[in-house]
């Protein structure tokens, strides 16, 4: 977290206090976002490109940000060097297998990233029941909707897309059906 909670806890819980905290957090987020473009630590460029194809089929762009805009591939790369390092072998084997499947389906394509959209969709359909695909699916969703500090969900865009917002405090009513509830 980027704000010292103790300050928040012992500060006055006024609207001004909340505004200050919100400003401080926003600033910290921008500061983090301004750093130089992330580098891959686990993937090489071709592995990253292939996994990104799968992630972008899972969460395509279009009616809102998808895996691409939220930096899911960077999230996955970092996950494989940190909390999910024991999944590295799953990715190595999985990518090799997907490439093999792609060569069988589309022998003329140089690589997966060169497939057209329709072919990429067909390729993902061919692997959607594999353990590797499920691993990528879990990572893609974590990268889209997990805490932005992990490198995905850039600008909270995944959260905003589904209507979620991470705040320290909310005031009721929260939804359509509790408006008339007595305090």
């Amino acid at each position, binding site marked *: 977290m980027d704000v010292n909670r103790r300050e928040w806890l012992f500060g006055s819980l006024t609207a001004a206090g909340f505004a200050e905290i919100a400003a401080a957090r926003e600033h910290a987020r921008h500061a983090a976002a301004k750093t130089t473009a992330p580098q891959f630590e686990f993937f090489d460029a071709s592995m990253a490109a292939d996994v990104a194809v799968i992630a972008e*089929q899972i969460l*395509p762009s279009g009616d809102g940000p998808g895996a691409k805009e939220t930096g899911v591939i960077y999230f996955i790369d970092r996950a494989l060097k940190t909390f999910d390092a024991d999944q590295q072998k799953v990715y190595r084997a999985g990518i090799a297998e997907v490439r093999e499947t792609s060569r069988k389906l589309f022998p003329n394509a140089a690589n997966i990233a060169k497939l057209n959209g329709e072919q990429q969709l067909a390729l993902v359909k061919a692997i959607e029941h594999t353990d590797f695909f499920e691993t990528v699916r879990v990572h893609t969703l974590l990268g889209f909707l997990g*805490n932005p500090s992990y490198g995905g969900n850039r600008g909270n865009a995944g959260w905003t897309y589904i209507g979620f917002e991470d705040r320290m405090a909310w005031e009721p009513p929260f939804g359509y059906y509790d408006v008339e509830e007595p305090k």
Partner: protein
Amino acid sequence: MSGRKFSLTDAVDFLVIGAGAAGGVVAKELSTSGFSVVVLEQGPYWRETDYSHDEIKYAFQAGLTNDTKLQPVTFRANENEPAKRFKAIEYGRQVGGGSVHFTANYWRFHESDFHERSLYGDIPGTSFADWPIRYADLEPYYTKAEYDLGISGLGGANPFEAPRSKPYPLPPMRAKSSGALFERATKKLGLHPYPAPMAVLSRPYQGRSACVNCGFCESFGCDVRAKSSTLVSVIPVAEKTGHCEIRPNSYVRKIATDARGRATGAVYFDAKRREVFQRAKAVVVCANGVESAKLLLLSNGLANSSGLVGKNLMWDNGSFATAVFEHPHNEFKGIQVTRLIHDYYAADPKRGFYGGGGIDARFNFYPAGFALYGMPPDAPKWGAEYKKMVAHYFTRSMSLLAHSTSLPMERNTVTLDPDVKDAWGLPAVRITYTPHPDDIANMKWLLEREYEIFDAMGAKKVWPQPVDALSTNRHLMGTCRMGLDPKKSVVNQYSRTHDVRNLFVVDGSNFVTAARQQPTATIQALAYRAADYMSRAAKAGELG
């Protein structure tokens, strides 16, 4: 982290093992009575300033719970099959234990829960039995717990609740959309909804701030100390006495005994995995419904003349269904549970099985978890349509959870795995568990009640979680059961082991039957009662 430090060689009056829901209470009660107390806790000592709303850390990884990378758990349905690595059980592993990350449901047991065997008779294949105590024995301690810890609720609002000597210390939490819809619908069905009793402060209390509705209760530590864990309520009181030391990162591997068979202290691994021995005049094990039994088994079967240590494991069976509605609930705001019913709580032989349960309205998903595991099974799992559905469903969904029965059976056990070791070289916990057919029938029956309620609520679509799916279980109970007969129980009615006069076990493991889940209030009431007894026994010189 205040409080004094005790030397290892001077015997402290009480050595408490586990700083969770029970251990925190015992430490506070004994230290405020003037006894010297050291509390050994496996996990770290975190504060509210260490917590965050990080779903990946706390909901997808073992942020506040046992980590199977360090402490593997193995599972088998019965003893004829090989045990495989699987996180069959989960418990809070830090100062405050499970009371830090729990949803904060705080139900008292009903009067009938203490003598269901007398009410409903024998159930073949089980060790269904009455408790050696009655509700009236625990009532003063339930009240004490509610006031010491800070519980919000509305006494008398549940027509099925047992008599209470005092109202809740804090008014109930406001209904969120799930609770408001649930309340209107269940009333229409002739049922009796009431505000959920929660270990969450609805108003400032004892120097702690009220809940600010951030929405991160279940699986998370509270940022503002509004969740009434032992970490923020009784443990600071214990430390302030100057008689209590909380020693985190201290993983006990053995309770030591002398030639007379009395407990003399415990051997534990410190943070650097060095073996340390702490001397004590009496030992109180509060390590939870699995770890307490494991520790006795690791201590050469201490206090196990009955052969029942580790047997009769019970846990949090339940029926869970989720539904989507027309308008947004925004259930990610606020505490998880605000309304429930106990209309179906009591068993009814006319149903054809032993069972019953309490049903609460809730939303305990966070964004990524909902997208991965909260969507209807017939929804696409990926692609443009899936993405759109997640966005539509996330703010419009809620769940019903029926907290149901878990019958005690000697075949359901905690044992030491003969092959798998943990990171300290100790045997892994091996869980053997198959639910009783009545527990399954009950879950199916309660799921039907949930569909009726969702129908009355106007849900657009309802989808269940399969009732017999293998899952990670909490609310661990039964493995050091309480009773008057030393041949049929491990501890007496005051949680003292029958075999070792200065050794106590008090936590969920004492439970004779599992009621309808939500064990925390009863665990803590038992802890208050046991501590009261320990204090009197020590002063009378009965523990030597």
